[in-house]
């Protein structure tokens, strides 16, 4: 044990801090802080932190300015655990919406939130992915099968369904939340 310390003193770099008894910023916080500073939200997205001291939990609002979902306002909850970025952030849509890649429970089928997540990806990659879902809903790998079927077989009908669902109407017996601005 004594030998370790003499080695330590040899390789010591000057002016490291005294240890404190206080809690230190965690590895997950460090990374999220870094990611937040690199976030480019543009004009269509904004964040909201219910508790500004807790950067691991926040909501993201997307207001698409083009595409079929234009005019809507969509909320997503982000919950990041202490094992970030080894684990991906948990993201859910907090409204019930009509979308082929989002189910009634708010689960989202986005590859980088699950099977393709890598620690090198950052939060910006996730929000870009979410934004893309509204510009280009993907019918081939759906979570909401009916919506996907509509998109595949009858694009115009799908567009009408999107409009009516966004207004709080119902599609095929399912009532959706009003999400218009």
């Amino acid at each position, binding site marked *: 044990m004594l030998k370790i310390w003499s080695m330590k003193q040899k390789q010591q770099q000057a002016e*490291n*801090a005294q*240890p404190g008894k206080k809690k230190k910023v965690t590895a997950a916080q460090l990374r999220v*802080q870094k990611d937040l500073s690199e976030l480019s939200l543009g004009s269509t997205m904004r*964040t909201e932190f219910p508790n500004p001291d807790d950067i691991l939990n926040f909501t993201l609002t997307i207001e698409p300015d083009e595409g079929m979902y234009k005019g809507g306002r969509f909320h997503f909850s982000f919950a990041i655990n202490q094992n970030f970025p080894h684990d991906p952030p948990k993201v859910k849509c907090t409204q019930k919406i009509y979308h082929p890649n989002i189910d009634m429970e708010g689960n989202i089928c986005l590859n980088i939130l699950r099977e393709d997540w890598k620690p090198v990806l950052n939060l910006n990659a996730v929000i870009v992915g979410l934004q893309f879902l509204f510009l280009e809903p993907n019918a081939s790998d759906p979570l909401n099968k009916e919506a996907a079927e509509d998109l595949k077989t009858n694009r115009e009908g799908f567009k009408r369904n999107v409009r009516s669902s966004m207004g709080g109407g119902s599609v095929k017996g399912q009532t959706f939340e009003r999400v218009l601005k």
Partner: protein
Amino acid sequence: MDMDGASVNGSPAGMDRKRWTYLDRILNRPGPFTDEEWVPGEPNIESLERMKILGAGGLGCEILKNLALSGFKDIHVIDMDTIDVSNLNRQFLFRQADVGRPKAEVAAQFVEKRVRGVKITPFCGKIQDKDEDYYMQFGMVICGLDSIEARRWINATLVGMVDNDDADTLKPLIDGGTEGFKGQARVILPTMTSCIECQLDMHAPRAAVPLCTLATIPRQPQHCIEWAHIIAWEEERKGNDTLDTDDPEHITWLYQKALARANEFNIPGVTYSMTQGVVKNIIPAIASTNAIVAAACCNEAFKIVTSTNPPLGFPGTNNYMMYTGDDSVYTYTFEHSKKDDCPVCGNLAKNLEVDPNTTLEDFIASLAEKPEAQLKKPTLRTEEKSLYYQSPPSLEEQTRPNLKKKLSELVSDGEQIAVSDPAFQITFKFKLVFKK
């Protein structure tokens, strides 16, 4: 209380060494690889007996046995779990009658009874329940934890505790893990050598299947099980019950849901056991692999404390052993290098003396003038508080009022802050020391 009990553990160091005949040969005789300055005999016995050592996690049974029979006298053990019947095939200090009791307590009692003169102090709880004051009392920590999150936590804690002016603050961390016939043991000298965060890429992320595959085009029995687990449960039961993977009723429900779905898609192979394995992410575990890895860890602990032979983990030497036993036996022992940009040990906190009456705004301005790190657009936080965020706009707005506050209102003397800046890849850490 039995009054006589006190004398059992009371034998002073050096006495009653007959039991340690074999150990003492190693402690008393120099070997060809021992350091020239190594002093045989008494000092080594003293080091072992003085060393307060902590064991944690699923390898706990093996670790306690090995440490007790390596001559350690003051052993602590942390485990949050209670004994489950599926532990009995390897955790050899537990019996059928112990099922349901806390692991740390049962294990400690057993080893204290079996190995005369050893003191084992159990704590039934999570490693995260304890703070630096607790970890500071130990000389060394041996972990056989089953989650990456817990490993990262203890690693960051021990790295953060190192004080360059106090040798006692450096606690070697020895980590072991197993999966089936494979395992690994590694030695970390916090701040000196590659840490668990540096080695995070050694843990493969769990393979996941796209949600849409589960939802619409399942092909494997596991897809049906994951569907039941992630989608069906939320739709049908979430409101009433939180999923408890140890509740047989819950697993049975998931199994039946998965089986029905598999039948619908003509997918063969869903079983109860597979359901359990997928839902609980069960990793196969056997006594022999646990024995290998735990003993490899304790052997390193013994060598570090006694210097009876060179251990793994010194800077510039091997610090990581991988063991593979499924195809013959193969070990790969190597040096995992420290990462300069490691978020935990790559940039250690530096002391920064500040006037507690300075406003946060002025403090930020002063950071821009610091010659070694010209932080022009810094974002700052403590563990508890977001001090000031340049972005995103909502957070900027929420933290803006802090700019006018005095540092003393935001941080306490000696608290750590993390500072990031778009111009730098790394996040800086400072410990703010108030000018008196």
